[in-house]
């Protein structure tokens, strides 16, 4: 159980405080409801580039790092398809420094041509390091593009191509800031060793005066129902053949989400899962195999992947894992399996309650999702799932026409 209090400031900023006396630190975590899915298809990678740019200082603060270090703190940020999340951790008595910095980021970064030029280069190097220079690094580009035809989930946060980042202009940068980085589009979480009252007072002091802004988010086009299976085969300079099979599933708030998550765990969560026991160890088809959810806020993907063992026929291997998943559309999972994966979720929940920063991030992301109480109630949703529901969800997700297959073959063979 994670105890928290929540208020909304007059400018629309939601403030959540979680007190944790076991740490000498506090975290100031600001999550903006903007991610890669809010980008235009001709300016992909922009939300992430923007995250880099905001560290270049503001009108009042030369750079963010020196003041953070000066008080013994750390800062960082990440961008996903749904959100952009910034955080600063500091020894608790230095909380005001963290609030000063994060509130000033919201007031307005100073955008300079030099800053934009350099961060463009840095992000393009990140693109190279993570996606071009690493075996299997373009997997998500290929898979998203195959599975999504209209929804902006069809590109990863790094963007479709480095060219989009190269072409970003200062005007676009400023407009993006103004329409997304507003108090009424953000959640502030303060967690750690601090009195709740003091935290709320300081939140009002530093963030209360920032004016509301008009949020100009274009409507996100939802993906139409897929009716025909798709398949893409690529060859790359990688040592081992692998595949990804992705089916569309519901959103994070869809009541089916919990059954789908448990289904993926029964199939491949842990060494005692069906895929691991039957296909990896039993039939020795794969050296690695996994079934997992993409876990995004809008309707996401249910994904099966495997790296083939030496000498195993590629199509046979891939079809075996699909067939193993398909079995759950016909036969109920056992009560013992269901109890096992629920126990695992429960234990993970308790493990996650350790760590003030992780809790801050979770609170922020549930609030952005639309239901912060889920942080404590989701376990009940998992506990309530029945074997029948899992079979029904499997049938819904693994239906004919909903499948996207990416064959990622080794060029050297």
């Amino acid at each position, binding site marked *: 159980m994670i105890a928290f209090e929540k208020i909304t400031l007059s400018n629309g900023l939601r403030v959540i405080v979680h007190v944790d006396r*076991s740490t000498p*630190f506090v975290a100031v975590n600001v999550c903006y409801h903007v991610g890669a899915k809010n980008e235009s298809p001709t300016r992909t990678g922009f939300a992430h580039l923007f995250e880099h740019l905001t560290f270049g200082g503001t009108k009042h*603060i030369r750079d963010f790092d020196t003041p953070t*270090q000066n008080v013994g703190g750390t800062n960082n940020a990440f961008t996903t398809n749904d959100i952009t999340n910034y955080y600063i951790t500091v020894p608790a008595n230095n909380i005001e420094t963290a609030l000063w910095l994060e509130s000033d980021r919201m007031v307005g970064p100073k955008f300079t041509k030099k800053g934009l030029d350099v961060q463009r280069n840095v992000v393009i190097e990140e693109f190279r390091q993570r996606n071009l220079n690493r075996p299997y690094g373009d997997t998500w580009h290929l898979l998203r593009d195959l599975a999504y035809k209209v929804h902006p989930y069809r590109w990863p946060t790094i963007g479709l191509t480095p060219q989009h980042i190269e072409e970003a202009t200062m005007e676009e940068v400023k407009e993006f800031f103004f329409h997304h980085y507003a108090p009424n589009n953000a959640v502030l979480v303060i967690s750690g060793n601090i009195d709740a009252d003091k935290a709320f007072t300081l939140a009002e002091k530093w963030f209360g005066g920032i004016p509301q802004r008009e949020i100009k988010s274009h409507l996100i086009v939802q993906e139409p129902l897929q009716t025909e299976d798709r398949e893409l085969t690529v060859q790359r*300079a990688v040592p081992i053949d692998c595949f990804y099979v992705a089916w569309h599933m519901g959103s994070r708030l869809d009541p089916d989400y919990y059954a789908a998550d448990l289904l993926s765990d029964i199939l491949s969560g842990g060494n005692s899962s069906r895929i691991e026991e039957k296909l990896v160890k039993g039939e020795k088809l794969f050296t*690695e195999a996994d079934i997992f959810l993409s876990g995004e806020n809008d309707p996401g993907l249910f994904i099966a992947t495997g790296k083939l063992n030496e000498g195993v026929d590629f199509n046979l291997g891939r079809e075996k894992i699909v067939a193993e998943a398909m079995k759950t559309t016909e036969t109920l999972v056992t009560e013992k399996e269901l109890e096992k994966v629920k126990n695992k979720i429960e*234990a993970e929940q308790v493990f996650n309650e350790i760590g003030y920063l992780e809790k801050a991030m979770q609170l922020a992301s549930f609030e952005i999702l639309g239901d912060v109480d889920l942080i404590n109630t989701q376990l009940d949703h998992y506990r309530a799932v029945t074997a029948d529901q899992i079979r029904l969800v499997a049938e819904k997700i693994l239906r004919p026409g909903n499948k996207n297959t990416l064959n990622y073959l080794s060029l050297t063979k």
Partner: protein
Amino acid sequence: MNLNRNTPPQIYSVDGVEYIEPKSHALSNGVELFTMKSGDQEVVKIDFMFKAGSWYAKSRLDSMMAALMLQEGTETLNASQIANTFDFFGAQFSSNSSYDNNYVTLVALNKYLPELLPLVSDILRNASFPESEFEILRQKRKQKALVDAERVGLVAQRGFLRNLFGEGHPYAPVASPAAYDTLLLSDVKQHYRNFYRSDNMSIIASGFIDSSVIDLIAANFSLSWGEKDSVTTNDSYRLPKAQKSIYIEKEGANQNAIAIGKLFPKQDHPDFPGLKLLCTILGGYFGSRLMTNVREEKGYTYGIQASPISFQQEGVLLIFAEVKMDKTSEAIKEVFYEMDRLTKELITEEELIPIQNYLLGRILEDFDGPFARAQTFASLREVDLDFDYYTKLIETFKITTPQQIRALAKKYLKADSMSTIIAGTK
């Protein structure tokens, strides 16, 4: 409210670290058990530490394979039964090998310890090393090695260590994925027999520790097992004369990886605290000189770090980055430029004070929460140090002068003492 955003809020310095020494208990077989109680969640983490890393192994991979094989079967349970038990109780079990010590770790809810600890005890005493599981693991690790061999970053770092230590040294990573083909199950099992002994083990338990946890550990791990045989350990190696410059070709790379550095004092050396400060200035935090120069000013890389790395027997300095292909030599030039600058110019107070404060904050983090404290304690034990090390570290961070930093740079960052490894495409 009228806020002055131009003036930073008042700064409070880190006023001290609460160490909280672990409690030490001796089990009846002589095994040392250390406990660190804290936290409200009913979770414990128990680390079983064995002096069984690659330093002790006959061949490097034996130690790793022995660690990974532990949960693949005991004399009475097969891999599936073991996996089902851990999964059913939502426990995380892992067994990791490293250069010096191996850790077997259980993270679990307190309420399931009565079911889980007998299983861990069985694994530590009676692992059976089944042939078929071994072959599966061999393939798996070989495939991973094949993929790793395509990553220029790993290729450069591994080449870097091989250059400093020499092929065949236990700290030198294995060069070829083919090494997996010649591994023998009997050697791996022998490694287990030789080093996973009760008299070669210590236990560190952290989290929600009460007397029932201590009693359960005592009940399950007080037997004596394993026998010492006449294994010879690798206690002396002649290190080769490292090459100054190595280029490892990787066709079709999109970036080149550079690894620059040398043998360096390790954690127990009197200069180490000062060198930690020096390396932080050079490349140990986001605002470091290398990050500022090579990433933030020039945009040649996504990230560049300088770290002093301590093994039990040796230490190294590693400066590492993946850089723009056509800016490789420029990036290397900047690394040497920044090292040279440290040997010549005195650091300003304006740059030094935030770094000192930053490092004090990291120390505070090393003691933040039961698991972090246990981790810190274990890593100090690895190199026969105790919490006094931190007292010295804090003092060094607080009182080291710009002159002392320059003197350390002059002594340890000489350009002609460095080796440079490039992996990628020319």
